[in-house]
Structures are given as C-alpha cells and as structure tokens.
C-alpha cells in the first residue's frame, strides 16, 4: 500500500487512534469502553501502521516485542489482584486510593491497573499476531 496519501495520513491516524484508545480505556469505568476496546483499537492502529509503512517499521516503532506488552499486562493485572493480600481481602478486591494533587482529584485504584493490564494484554497479543502474520512470526 505504497500510496502517498495513505503513507502520509496513516501516522496521523495512528497517533489519534492510540490516544483515543488510551482515553477509552481510562474512562471505561464510567462510560462505554475499557481495556478490551482500548486494546483492540490500539491493535487496529498497529495494523494500519504496518499496512501503511511496513512491518519492520511498525515493529521498530514499538521498540519492545509486542508479546512483552502482553506478558506485562497480564502480570500487572495479576499484581493488582494480589495487592489485596496486604489488605487481608480476597484476590482481586478493588482498593481505592484518592489522591488530591493540588486542584486535580485523581482516583488510583486496583481496577484501574487491572483494566490497563487488559489493555496491554489485548494490544500486545493481537499486535504480535498481526505483525507475525506478515513475517512468519519472526518479529524479534
């Protein structure tokens, strides 16, 4: 797909999609969205990037092997469930930490990290599949 228009536009779209995916993930707790959808959008962005430029380029722009994202995401979700051990609560108990940073009111919670983990897992695994399909899996 070496058309000029697509190659020029694609990075822009990809950037928008990535930002949008993070946005969707973060607000998922209150509005439609969440880690799954965010991750899927991010993976779609990666697909567009790889089609518009090349797999190698898309892989380079990630810096890290996509499966590392996936592993890290699952690990993060697991950790966010384990935190409740310290609180003498069962696995995956939601713990909330309300931070007042000056004007901003930030709510940090284990479900948030869990959702971020989902995002990373979905993005990583699907990204790996999409890139791998073009290169026989050799995407190191």
């Amino acid at each position, binding site marked *: 797909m070496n058309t000029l228009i697509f190659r020029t536009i694609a990075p822009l779209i990809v950037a928008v999609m990535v930002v949008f995916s993070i946005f969707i993930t973060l607000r998922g707790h209150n509005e439609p969205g969440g880690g799954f959808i965010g991750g899927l959008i991010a993976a779609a962005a990666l697909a567009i990037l790889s089609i518009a430029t090349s797999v190698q380029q898309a892989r380079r722009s990630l810096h890290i092997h996509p499966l*590392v994202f996936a*592993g890290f995401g699952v690990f993060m979700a697991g*950790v966010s469930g384990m935190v409740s051990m310290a609180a*003498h*609560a*069962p*696995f995956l108990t939601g713990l909330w930490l309300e931070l007042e940073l000056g004007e901003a009111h930030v709510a940090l919670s284990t479900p948030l990290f869990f959702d971020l983990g989902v995002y990373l897992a979905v993005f990583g695994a699907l990204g790996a599949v999409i890139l791998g399909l073009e290169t026989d899996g050799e995407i190191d």
Partner: protein
Amino acid sequence: MNEAMITTPTSWADWILILPVVLPLMGAALMLALRAIRGTQAPVAFLVTLAVLVFDIALFLRVLETGPIAMTMGRWLPPFGISFTADLLGAGLAAISALVTLVILVVLGAEPRRHAGRDSLYPLVLMLLCGVSGAFLTGDLFNLYVWFEVMLIASFGLMAITGTPLVLDGTIKYGFINFLATSLFLAALGLAYGLLGTLNMADMAILAGDANPAAMGVIAALLLLAFGIKAAAFPVNAWLPASYHTPPAVISALMGALLTKVGVYALLRTLITMFPDARALLDPVIVTAAIATLLLSPLGAIAETNLRRAIGFLVMGGIGACLAGLALPSVDGLAGTSFYLGHAMVTMTALYLLAGFVEKVTGETDSRAMGGVYGAQSWLSILFFVVMLAAAGVPPFLGFWPKLMLVEAGFDLSGFFDGAPGYEAVPLLLVGAIILNAWLTLIAGTRLWAHIFLRPGREGALSEQPNDRLVRLGRREALIGLGSTGLLVGGIVIAGLLPDFAIGAARIAATDLLDPARYLAAVGLGGGQ
C-alpha cells in the same frame, strides 16, 4: 457494606485456594515480559510448579481437615462474586495435576535437544496448568468456561508447537472439535443463566430443583455432550486418537494426563452435584456411552500399531471407567470415579513418558518397527510393564482399587446379591463392561509389550534378528528423565499397595459430590434454603 460484601478479613493462609491459578498465570506472564532472559524459563517453570504443588497439597490437607472451603473474589457476597470453592475432589485433582506437570517439566529439562518453539513451551505449560487448576477449583460456571478456554488455547499451542504436517493435521481435528465443545458449553451456560439467573455453581444447585424440567433437561444434555467431547466419551471421542500421538511425547503426556480428566471432573461437578434430577433423565445415555467407551477403547488399543496412538485408546478406556461411575451414582461408584481420575492422570503421564523413551530408543513411532527394548533397556521395560499393568487394573497396582469400587458399586446398586428377588440389570451390565475392559486392556498391553519389548527385532522376516537400530539414552536423560519417571511409577506402586488414604479421600469426595450440603455451606449458601 454488610449486605454486599464479606467483611471478615481473609487470612493469608486462605490464599492457597487461588495461588495455584495465579502463580502459573503470573509466572507465564513474567516469562513473556522478561523474554530477553532466556535461560531462566525452565527453572522458573519448575519453581512455579513446585510452589503450586506445595500449595495444592496444603489445600488438599486443609480441605481434608475442615471440609470444602471457598474464597469469593473481590469480597463480594456469594453468589454475586466469583467463588473459588475447593472440595476434596477438586483439590486432590489439582494437586495431582501439579505433580504430573512437575515430573513432565523435569523430563523435559533432561532432554538433550530442545524442542522447537522453545520460547513458547514453558509459558504454555504453565498456562495449561493454570487453566487446569482453575477448572478444578472454581465454583462458578462461567468461570469454569473461562478456565476451559485457557486450558484449550494452551493445549492448542502445545500441540502444534513443532508445526510438522502431522501435528497440524492432528491439531486441526483436536482444535475444531474441542472448540466446538466449549462453544456448546457456553450455549448451555447461557441457557442455564437465562433459566436460573445465576452463575455460582452452589447457587445453581439450589435453584435447579425448582426450574423447568424440560429446559434443565436440555441444559444437562448439552453439558453432557460438551464435557463428553472434552472427556473423550464414545461416540464423540474421535479427536483424541486423531491428535494425541502427533506432538512430542512429553506434550502427549501432559495432555493425556490433564485434559480429558478435566472433562470428567466437569461432568461430575455439573451432573452429580448441580443437576442430579436432570442427570437421572440422561442415565440411559450415560450408561450406553460408558459401556461403549469401555469396550471399544481397548479394542482400539489392540488394533493400533502406532504406540502413542494405542496409548490414546487406553486413555479413553479409563474415561469409560469414569463414565461408569457417573452412571453408578452411589458413594462407592463416585469414589471409584474420583480415585480413577487421579490414578489415570498419573498412570497415563507415566505411560506416555515411557512411550517417549521407547520412541527415542527405537527411533520409531510404530510398534511394528520396534523391538528388542527388553534386552537393551531393562529399567525402561520393567517400568513400562508395571505401568501397563496399573492401567489394566491388575492388582495390586493402583488401577485395581477404583475398578474394585466401581464393581462393588455396580453390585450394590443392582441389588443382585442382596438376596431380594428383584434387581436392576443395568449396573450389572456396567460391571461386565468394566471387567471385559480390564481383560481387553491387558490383551492390548501384552501385545504392545510383546511386540515392542520382547520381540528382538522389527515386524516381518527379521523379527527374530536383534534390532540394530536401538540407541542408548543419553546419560543425563536416562538418569534424570527416566529416573523421575521411575519415581512416579514407584509412587504408583506404593500407592497401589497402600491405597487406604486415597480410598478414604475418594469416599469423602464422593460423599460431598452426592450431598452438596457441605459444599454449599462453604460458599455461604444453602443455609435456610
């Protein structure tokens, strides 16, 4: 808060219920996240599995002491949160899964050549263990579905890891049929939710009695079909002999040990504990399937020349025995099934592992081309012989006891030897099938033994000439790989000689299966309902 959440604090000791699932999950995730450091995978996998085994055993002992225990995730009151519930059956099977995985990891580690797909192998093994543990310990039907899928995708990955044409063929059959099975499970689950409005197994067990019998019948029939496929019950067992012999032997061992057994476990859990009324409707089907599986599987093993494919048929024969227990729902029958499940896990692992060594020694997969192992590898031969006898249920090896319990259950349920005039014929049919199965299995086993071990050379004119293609196992492999398998077999022998503990535990497990009061109480439901 009180009406929504459990307020009693969870002690750290309670975490043994969830750690067998979380540890391998996080271990696998960590392996991926740190994939740059390659040499660590094998030791990490070993340590994680060892930890899981320790936790599983602790869990088992605790359940033995206090009865079933539960942990509801996120502190939400059951049935609203997901309750992990361990009764003796689940905990015991989880412990055995961890044990066989550990042995398999050791054997894998001792192999001189690394398998293809080395980066994925250990994470996949851990994820398989994770899925299996989850399936054994969860107390929520949808959650069970999720663990089934975890297990399934991990087994896909493992099975196709070498990517040879043979493996691909096997995996296609395995993959399509098994994914279809989980899809049917999902459909049954959806219907059950629509009917009962709940997903917690204990809660479902309570509500199922008053639900529409026709719909419950469909749900139970769907579950029987779905888990029957998973468990490789006749006539939906074709995927097993089509696929289990294709991957490397260690992977066959892992699958043969774990996957079908989870299917049987799910059958027990759903049809015995949760929907006993609907199961009664399905009895004729279960009996037919059990008898057919019992009789046809060893015939397959007799007919098959590919060694590991023949073992696949033996795996299915064991499933027939388990199904027989499902059709004999007394304490003895279910205890027999529970015991048999544990026995089959260990025995089939050992059998596949030994078959792997045999294939290495002979360089062949077809028993017709093998021969002369008895002369060259005494230890391997004796181990194989013992395991074969254990699989056939010859006393005093381990397989005998569960079969004995099943036969006794059949006699008791038939009432034939009570002295009373009337009796039920069906349990006697099952008893007959179990006995014939033992005999046919022995025939199959001795044939394999005679062809592979006793006969000096390969099939045909040269069969009386020594086999000159035999290779010696590497030192490390013989010592560690065969040694650990030998330890496993030693365990089988000792457990067969002193089965009291296992029988007692199986009895308790069966009692809890039949009368779920303690199970319900552990979840926090059932009181006053």
